[in-house]
């Protein structure tokens, strides 16, 4: 009897140890935090196949969460951003999920899918493994609610302006050329998207990790200028070594009489074959960036990009830049117009806006008539 019980004890301990090293569901380990005065309320949170697994001294959290939120405000919602955090200090511990291009009426439900992976040290406390909190809600009138820790107000405002710009463009085609013209425009968008060069990009902060075999040299930016842009690029350089581009330094001038608090420069690289691609956006903001009316300031990032294609390094031969976004001190945002992008031949290089992605998806799934009906809603 004694022998039997000790054998069961050993088996129990072994099973416990084995189950500890394997996947565990995240039943009560995800906490959804919405403030009491939040304009959205939580209807349901389905954790799906979310699970945690141990990897070395860290916990890997695979999140497959489907939230259903309700618009509890009197305004139509255009975008929502949530912060998803397992811990905020070390890399891989936090992420954000944004849903732009929404049109949610008051008291209407809408989904937010969280489908990503986070890391968390093993030795953290006993609280929930993952915290989901609201970072911001953007309304139809561009008013905003939320702590804005991730600068989601500017991002969602820019996405909504891009959405209005792109809808206006397609509606003008619909008005001028009917559904057939809209179909033709969509086919052109899909063709551009299929032909857009695709490169693998890796970004790292801090000192270079380039191989010593590549000779490093400073390359001067060539800038694209848009008519009516409130900020213009004056001069800029980046260090190029083989397939690495790093430390962009760009001087920009404020052409308006308003204070600017954020500027984003699109960074285009060219390879030996002449293919151009937007490698990264170079943002400038914060206390060190002071762009008063009529003044000049420097956009710089201590960062390195490595470009590859099909597993092999890509030799960088040229750099271009353009002003992609400007935010004024009062929170209003400027983005380049459709004509400016077409005039600079950037439509085939830039990624489609979230709204253009949504409209292309609608066209693919439901055809030009459904797309025309969708455009006419706005």
């Amino acid at each position: 009897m004694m022998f039997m019980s000790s054998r069961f004890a050993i088996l129990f301990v072994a099973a416990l140890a084995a189950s500890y090293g394997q996947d565990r569901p995240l039943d009560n380990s995800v906490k959804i935090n919405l403030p009491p005065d939040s304009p959205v309320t939580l209807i349901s949170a389905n954790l799906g196949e979310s699970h945690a697994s141990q990897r070395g001294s860290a916990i890997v959290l695979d999140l497959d969460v489907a939230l259903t939120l309700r618009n509890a405000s009197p305004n139509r919602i255009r975008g929502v951003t949530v912060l998803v955090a397992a811990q905020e200090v070390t890399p891989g511990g936090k992420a954000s999920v944004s849903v732009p291009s929404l049109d949610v009426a008051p008291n209407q439900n809408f989904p937010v899918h969280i489908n990503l992976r986070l890391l968390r040290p093993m030795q953290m406390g006993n609280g929930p493994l993952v915290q989901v909190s609201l970072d911001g809600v953007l309304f139809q009138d561009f008013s905003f609610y939320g702590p804005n820790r991730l600068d989601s107000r500017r991002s969602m405002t820019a996405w909504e302006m891009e959405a209005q710009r792109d809808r206006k463009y397609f509606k003008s085609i619909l008005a001028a050329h009917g559904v057939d013209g809209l179909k033709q425009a969509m086919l052109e968008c899909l063709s551009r998207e299929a032909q857009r060069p695709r490169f693998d990009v890796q970004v790292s902060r801090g000192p270079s990790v380039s191989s010593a075999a590549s000779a490093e040299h400073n390359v001067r930016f060539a800038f694209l200028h848009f008519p009516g842009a409130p900020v213009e690029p004056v001069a800029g350089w980046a260090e190029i070594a083989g397939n690495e581009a790093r430390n962009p330094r760009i001087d920009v001038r404020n052409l308006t009489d308003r204070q600017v608090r954020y500027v984003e420069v699109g960074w285009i690289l060219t390879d030996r074959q002449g293919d151009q691609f937007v490698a990264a956006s170079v943002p400038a903001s914060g206390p060190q960036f002071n762009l008063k009316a009529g003044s000049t300031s420097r956009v710089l990032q201590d960062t390195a990009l490595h470009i590859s294609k099909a597993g092999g390094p890509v030799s960088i031969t040229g750099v271009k830049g353009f002003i992609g976004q400007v935010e004024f001190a009062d929170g209003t945002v400027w983005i380049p117009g459709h004509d400016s992008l077409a005039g600079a031949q950037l439509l085939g290089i830039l990624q489609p806006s979230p709204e253009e992605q949504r409209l292309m998806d609608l066209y693919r799934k439901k055809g030009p008539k459904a797309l025309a009906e969708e455009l006419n809603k706005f």
Partner: protein
Amino acid sequence: MTHPSETDLALYAGQDLGWLGRRECRRAVQEFAAVSESLADFNELPAISWNRLANEMKANIHLGLSAGECVRREAPVGTLARAFSARALTAYAGAMAVLVASLYLQRPMPPAAPAAANGSTILRATANGIELDQGGHALSLLHEVSDSVTYSAGAQGSMRAGYVDADGHVTINDVYVQ
């Protein structure tokens, strides 16, 4: 006349006896019928066929001599001359042309910098999703969830993925180096 010894008879049968001994043995064989009969026994010893062994040994020696001749022919004095013959130079030129053409077409680059060579943290966007690389240990943070997902890097240390989900909603995920 005395009988030849068995040893001499055996050597005579294998034709290995010297000229004088062979002459004496031949005469003895002719004179003594009994000796002639025993000669047949010696010539066809059940275990050892001396004639066959001898033929094989000769054949092996000829083979060795032929092989040695071949080796001597492979390292002739005129090797250098043949290495720079017209045919060889033509072949070298062809190989060089192929090499130069491949270098021109491929433009080989130095190998890509090793990820996180100095222990830094790297975010990488590939066709399969977004990866975090820390000290050479890679972890996928975001799998590709759609065929039409777009990735964009932020120079402040972030990576963004945008896609349209099955319900037609655009979802944008941002992950951060720090």
